């Protein structure tokens, strides 16, 4: 199975690899997946508390090229978005952008889940109720 050029580019030049200080109140961390499933994604957002806009996003991913590319792309899209808009990122837009084949759709689902988990972690830290999401269909 050949990877799309966009996946290869994100794999070779991943954007925003790194770690934010999770002890800070304005940093939300989402850790999803499991080593047994062959992919684990950690996605972090740093929010400008005055505006509610995500000013930085970082990821680290254990997984295949599509999982790495999905999380790399997600961090790019997150920067500059408001926290409320961030949770509107749909996994299918990641699939389309990266031309992921059907067997790799779960990678995009994982990225979407990581975003939601990071946002909820931020909300929890700041005394906001956690958002409820429908269970993702594809796992």
């Amino acid at each position, binding site marked *: 199975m050949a*990877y799309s050029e966009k996946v*290869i580019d994100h*794999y070779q030049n*991943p954007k925003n*690899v790194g*770690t934010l200080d999770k002890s800070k109140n304005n940093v939300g961390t989402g*850790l*999803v*997946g*499991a*080593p*047994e*499933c*062959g*992919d*684990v*994604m*950690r996605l972090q957002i740093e929010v400008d508390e005055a505006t509610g806009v995500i000013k930085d996003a970082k*990821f*680290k*991913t*254990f*997984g*295949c*090229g599509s*999982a*790495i590319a999905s999380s790399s792309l997600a961090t790019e899209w997150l920067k500059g978005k408001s926290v409320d808009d961030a949770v509107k990122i749909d996994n299918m837009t990641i699939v389309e952008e990266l031309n992921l084949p059907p*067997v790799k759709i*779960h990678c995009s689902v*994982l990225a979407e*889940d990581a975003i939601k988990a990071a946002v909820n972690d931020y909300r929890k830290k700041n005394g906001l109720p956690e958002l409820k999401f429908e269970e993702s269909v594809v*796992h």
Partner: protein
Amino acid sequence: MLQLPVYLDHNATTPCDPRVVEAMIPYFTQNFGNAASRNHPFGWQAEEAVDYAREQVAKLVGADPKEIIFTSGATEGDNLAIKGVFEMYASKGNHIITCNIEHKAVLDTCKHIEKEGGEVTYLKVKPNGLIDLAELEAAIKPTTILIAIMYANNEIGTVNPVKEISAIARKHGVLFFSDAVQAVGKIPVDVNKDGIDLMAFTAHKMYGPKGVGALYVRRKNPRVKVTAQMDGGGHERGMRSGTLNVPGIVGFGKACELAMNEMKQDAELLSKLRDKLENALLSIEEAYLNGDKEHRLPHVSNISFKYVEGEGLLMGFNKNIALSSGSACTSASLEPSYVLKALGLGDDLAHSSLRFGLGRFTTEEQIDFTIEQVTNTVNKLRDMSPLWEMYKEGIDLNTIEWAHH
């Protein structure tokens, strides 16, 4: 001079040796006869060529040429041996013993046998990938008709104690079949010294063409018979009907002759290169060898690089280096290698493995290049692995509640 791309997937298939192709060519256009045509020179030539190849193949494994049944490959050989014995010896019993790291061609055939009313015991292997002889012997019952244990494993390269297995089989009057695809042509295999009654092997794993293989069926002490699985012209002593693939068989014969002459020097060279590769890669932190260091093929190494995922790792260099991963993502299924899991590896290690299979044309420059590329990619991916970061911080990954997908 470094030649790219590097092919290190010789357990999947090997290139044809040019000398093999050269031997085959006349049998496509000039000597194209049907080996079963008895009444003209075209047929005679083809028959002669097949007879000669049968001798070359038999010689490599210490068999009599009459004991070689040509097939389309090892999958057919596995099917013919297991189903053929099950049907032929139905009056003696219906129990077959095999093990859980056999090739799918054996495991799925055994599952088919179970549907047909047979009983199959799947022995578990030890953590080093070898079968436990005491467990094997304990599994034998009065109804046991066949022991089906591979000679060498395709993923980890471990070589089973074949002589000891056959001694147990003999002692209990049970037939012993071995899928020897990975071993024949790579290490000395002798059906008499090894005490094998039936053995499947194939040309394309030993620098011959795809689509041709052989099933060895013992004719003496004991005389073994299998029920044919295809009806037709009664070729191959009635055990395998179908017009013989003459060019393929000629190529197979040539490949066997070359292996006979060059196996020793190939094995010496390849084990040196393999050891160089393996020692360098095992010097990477948290890298582990899968299988057994002593009892294994000279050209195979299977290594897990903890905290990086196999398919992601392959992507770092798969334009230049062809390798297989034990990780599920490479195949359609999402399960990691059943062979590695059978050794007791956790899913995390099973997902992190690469199989290196060297071959006759592998060069030292290619090995040096592979060491460099794999090392760099492991380091790069660990820098972006959350698991590596946790490991480095001293967090026990088993204490984390993972959201299972």
